[in-house]
């Protein structure tokens, strides 16, 4: 069953075309990666899908409904959650309260929101952070909190924007486990923007590649990593050589 369908999506900022005629679709239960060099329009695409940007042209269909004209909060209420690449917290909420805000989308009861938040924090192994202010946590932990918060709203589709950027190998390992848990155990369809290729190759089923706002390739991780266009635009010859030497 198709959960998300993006048709000929274009987004202009003045003279700059950030997304140029992008089309793709996602099945329910998939785990899709979105890669591409900096400035390729990945985050803009997320912003368009989640309703923060109005699209210039094109259509976005989510769960059988045209969500193109909807505002961000309306899109969110239909079960499409996301995280942010750069998370600026003014520092008024603790981790638990932050996740509770997500949970409040589905319930008005504080005790129910708290119970749900606690459960999510436990499932993502960050229950011990509950009482910290989000702003006083290191980046790695903050990213997992934003993930937990998005999950709190009980989404059908979760868009993750560079949750592994700037993390050390151990932390990448941990966040990978969390992503798998969210997908496999919680049954949430996931799309993720990521520069950490190891993560993309290991966890995703399918990869979409953007360059200069256009979709230049799409396929399973294996075929993408050998696609000459993708190597030229993004991965680079060095990546390919490293992969070969580590394989051989």
């Amino acid at each position, binding site marked *: 069953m198709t959960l998300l369908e993006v048709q000929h999506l274009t987004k202009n900022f003045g003279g700059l075309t950030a997304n140029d005629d992008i089309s793709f679709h996602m099945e329910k239960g998939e785990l899709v990666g979105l890669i591409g060099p900096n400035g390729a329009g990945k985050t803009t695409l997320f912003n368009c899908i*989640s*309703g*923060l940007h109005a699209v210039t042209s094109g259509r976005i269909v989510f769960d059988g409904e045209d969500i193109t004209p909807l*505002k*961000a*909060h309306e899109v*969110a*209420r239909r079960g499409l*959650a*996301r995280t*942010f690449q750069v*998370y*600026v*917290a*003014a*520092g*008024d*909420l603790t981790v638990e*309260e*932050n996740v*509770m*805000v*997500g949970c*409040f*989308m589905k*319930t*008005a*009861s*504080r*005790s129910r*929101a708290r119970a749900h938040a606690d459960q999510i924090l436990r499932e993502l192994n960050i229950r011990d952070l509950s009482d910290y202010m*989000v702003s006083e946590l290191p980046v790695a932990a903050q990213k997992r909190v*934003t993930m937990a*918060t*998005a999950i*709190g*709203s009980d989404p059908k589709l979760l868009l993750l924007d560079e949750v592994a950027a700037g993390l050390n190998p151990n932390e990448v390992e941990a966040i990978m486990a969390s992503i798998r848990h969210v997908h496999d155990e919680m049954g949430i369809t996931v799309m993720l923007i990521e520069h950490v290729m190891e993560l993309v190759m290991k966890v995703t089923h399918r990869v979409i590649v953007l360059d200069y706002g256009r979709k230049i390739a799409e396929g399973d991780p294996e075929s993408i990593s050998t696609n000459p266009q993708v190597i030229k635009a993004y991965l680079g010859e060095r990546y390919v050589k490293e992969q070969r030497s580590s394989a051989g």
Partner: protein
Amino acid sequence: METIKNALDFSDFPRLDLTVAGAVALCLIIFPLFPLSSFAMSTMIQFLMFALYGMGWNTIGGYGGQVDLGKAQYVGIGAYTTAVMLIRWDIPFWVSMPIGVCFAVTWSFIIGYPLFRLKGHYFAIATIATSLVLKDIFEVWEFVGAARGLEISPIKYHPPDFLRLIFREDIYYFYFILGFFFLGILYINWFRKSRLGYQLRSIKDNEDMARSLGINVHWAKIKTYAIATGFVSVVGSFHACYIKNIEPEDTMSLDISILIALMAMLGGAGSLWGPIIGAGILIPLKSYLKEWLGAQAGLVGIDLILYALIIMLISAYEPRGVWGIIEKIRRRKRA
């Protein structure tokens, strides 16, 4: 049920806070038993009124982070509704007060809808502007006494009049406003734990994030603004009965708006006790400076100089005010 439970549940505060709060509450209740001057009594009533104004401001300004410098317009709407209705049609306080709240909330929707399209300083400036415009309208509006204002003459009534809230002794007013004060604390205690309370704090943290969590940011701000307005309007109605002499220059001046915001910020915006602490510091200080130094030593305007100083100190050192300092010390002790 959960609503009432949340309003009465203060268990997430440390025991020390609750002990201090309980002691202060007790002192307030037995305060009139001490033979104090009428000056102390009127300062105390002012303190309670401004603590309530501050609590109202704190919902949108503190928890929501939308600095509102136009609360005086709602003091005016509440005060004028009660005064006009009493003088012209002999309508008692308990009827005119809720009607005043309706007027104030309606007005808050009318100006809140466009105003919350603005952010930060622009929003703050726009609230000042609407407040000043409303004040100017009242100054030329003959029906409400124009610039002369209105006077409720107590001779017409037979105090103590509990329906119209007309009393000869301040002690009645004290207990009435103290009752409102306790109810106000319970309401804010519920509010900060409500869905809207959490959503507002999330909006203050990061608006895009809040949107992507299904929060209608614009509507949440308007709703909270209406709540803040309700608070201010109730106290405005009380103000009319207590002062008995209202004119636009007194009830709707920019000074009042600034004082309300300043108090909440000094005490600690976004905390339950903040506005009360702020009012507890500023109101006695203001009374002392204005009535005493201002009138007797001829240092007119010294209170305004002091406000300016406080604004500068808060914004430079601790944006979260006195309560922010207390929390910081506590955190350091725990760590």
